[in-house]
């Protein structure tokens, strides 16, 4: 083994604290350097923009980020070494990704919160739109909350067993072509456009009950078509994570396969399964198009019966409000307020559902950790 290892060579070239370091002491940028550099970049870029008289936050931010990335890479390459420089560059990029993504997301959430809060109160949550005409400063979302809970609840009740059992089949039982076919077609099913799912159920309903028969159940079935593949996919991943050793441990105790699945595999995976179900729920709870087609958009009163007539849901409620938003005068203003407030309501409902799911999952896996 020679003394001229690569790191030593790299080090001596930048003339650091000498050979004694043999690559260990490398000159490093102080920890305050990156943030300071960022501030400098921001100031310089904004200054330049101001000079040319066209300051706009977005391009300024983009240029600042670019300038920062170039500067940090260059200074790191000069002071440290090329590998650190690359590391710093990637760190910068990762933070940028975060910023790039979080900014619109936060903007979205805060927009919803700020606009939504104007009409969001107990009254709004506790009344329906029954008897409310567009220009009235009245009405609320209660019926839509009920509808959303009933429809997505039904969809969950339909999809979770089917999806979970399919995942169990694929992971635990599946062999050969049928398994391949199912995994492949589940993938395909994830791509069914929501509107096509809606049209499909409408056709089904026309076959069964004649035209114009919209109700909550139809909506729930349309949502199930969208939800099932997501449940299957995520559950599949989670079941695969359960180590085989545990299955073998159960088999070795003379436990039949199905009990092994029910009592060992599923409980072990329960946290992951919950995440999957939450994602699936998230996928459908905001669906609009299929619900308009299947559950209708006429309902203004509270209807908790999924078999009986139109059922309003929060996304459709928002959609309707958005459509009325362009009305001149107060009607448009109220519609816009309702749209945002309902959006806020939906987000809060989702948050509560997520929380509940987490709690249930924690309850189901008591002795973990």
């Amino acid at each position: 083994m020679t003394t001229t290892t690569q790191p030593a060579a790299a080090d001596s070239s930048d003339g650091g604290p000498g050979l004694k370091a043999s690559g260990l002491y490398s000159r490093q940028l102080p920890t305050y350097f990156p943030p300071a550099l960022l501030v400098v970049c921001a100031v310089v870029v904004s200054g330049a923009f101001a000079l040319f008289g066209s300051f706009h936050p977005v391009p300024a931010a983009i240029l600042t980020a670019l300038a920062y990335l170039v500067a940090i890479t260059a200074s790191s390459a000069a002071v440290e070494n090329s590998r650190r420089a690359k590391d710093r560059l990637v760190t910068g990029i990762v933070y940028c990704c975060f910023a790039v993504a979080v900014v619109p997301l936060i903007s979205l959430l805060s927009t919803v919160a700020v606009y939504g809060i104007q009409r969001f109160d107990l009254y709004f949550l506790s009344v329906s739109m029954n008897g409310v005409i567009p220009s009235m400063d009245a009405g609320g979302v209660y019926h839509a909350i009920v509808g959303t809970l009933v429809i997505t609840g039904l969809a969950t009740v339909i999809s979770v067993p089917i999806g979970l059992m399919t995942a169990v089949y694929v992971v635990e039982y599946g062999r050969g072509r049928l398994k391949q076919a199912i995994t492949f077609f589940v993938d395909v099913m994830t791509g069914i456009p929501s509107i096509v799912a809606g049209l499909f159920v409408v056709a089904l309903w026309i076959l069964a009950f004649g035209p114009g028969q919209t109700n909550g159940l139809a909506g729930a079935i349309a949502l199930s078509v969208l939800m099932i593949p997501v449940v299957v996919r995520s559950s599949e991943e989670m079941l695969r994570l359960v180590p085989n050793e545990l299955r073998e441990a159960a088999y070795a105790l003379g436990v039949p396969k199905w009990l092994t699945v029910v009592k060992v595999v599923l409980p072990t995976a329960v946290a992951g399964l919950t995440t999957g179900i939450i994602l699936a729920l998230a996928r459908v709870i905001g669906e609009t198009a299929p619900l308009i087609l299947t559950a209708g958009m006429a309902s203004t009163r509270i209807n908790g019966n999924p078999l009986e007539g139109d059922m309003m849901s929060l996304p459709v409620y928002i959609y309707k409000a958005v459509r009325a938003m362009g009305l001149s005068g107060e009607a448009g203003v109220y519609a816009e307020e309702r749209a945002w407030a309902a959006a806020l309501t939906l987000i809060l409902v989702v948050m509560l559902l997520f929380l509940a799911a987490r709690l249930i999952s924690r309850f189901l896996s008591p002795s973990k950790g």
Partner: protein
Amino acid sequence: MAKRIDVSDLNVYYGDFKAVEDVTMTVEPRSVTAFIGSSGCGKSTFLRTLNRMHEVTPGARVKGKVMLDNLDVYDPSVDPVAVRREIGMVFQRANPFPTMSIYDNVIAGAKLNSQRLSKSRADEIVERSLRDANLWEEVKDRLNKPGAGLSGGQQQRLCIARATAVEPAVLLMDEPCSALDPISTLAIEDLIAKLKENYTIVIVTHNMQQAARVSDRTAFFNLAGTGQPGRLIEMDDTNKIFTKPDKKETENYITGRFG
């Protein structure tokens, strides 16, 4: 309760690959039989065929006969689940059920099968099995804590307790000590010595000293060559194998200066 195992002309395949060839042997009841041999020669594979665990591996097949006393283990009318109840297994890596408490882990064999067990009977089984496994003293105060919170050696002993709680006739152990420190190893060896009073025990080990210490009979497996199936080279009383084996191959392996 201990039973004899008779294996005749057993061949094991993974798909088209023959992993073990023509093994014929008898495992005596109330004794410890050790399997030794180099890596990849099919010890684990062979061991798993004894309680039909190989069926869990996709593509694994068996040709030959395994008799448990008078019962043909591979008879189509025999339920593999019942076979595994009779022939328990302990794995190389401890695998307690992470979602269960220590108590539930021990009683898992009954519980997972939805057997109704009175509380007192269950308590009794748990205590006896844990005592057998030399773990009772260490865990009796935290039976309701998760099993995954134990140290490696404790987990391994917990798995042994779990296996003995269902009172199998035979206990198969695949390198149960390879991840353990000497003290835990010692505890498990003591346990094996004690268990053999009631069980038929088969143990796979890489540790020659261990084989010499714990086993009554030793089977030496080896590969016929790379890519070829493993075979049983020689099986005899442990003393004989470690002092004057019949085959040159065995002697070469045994007298390596390792341990």
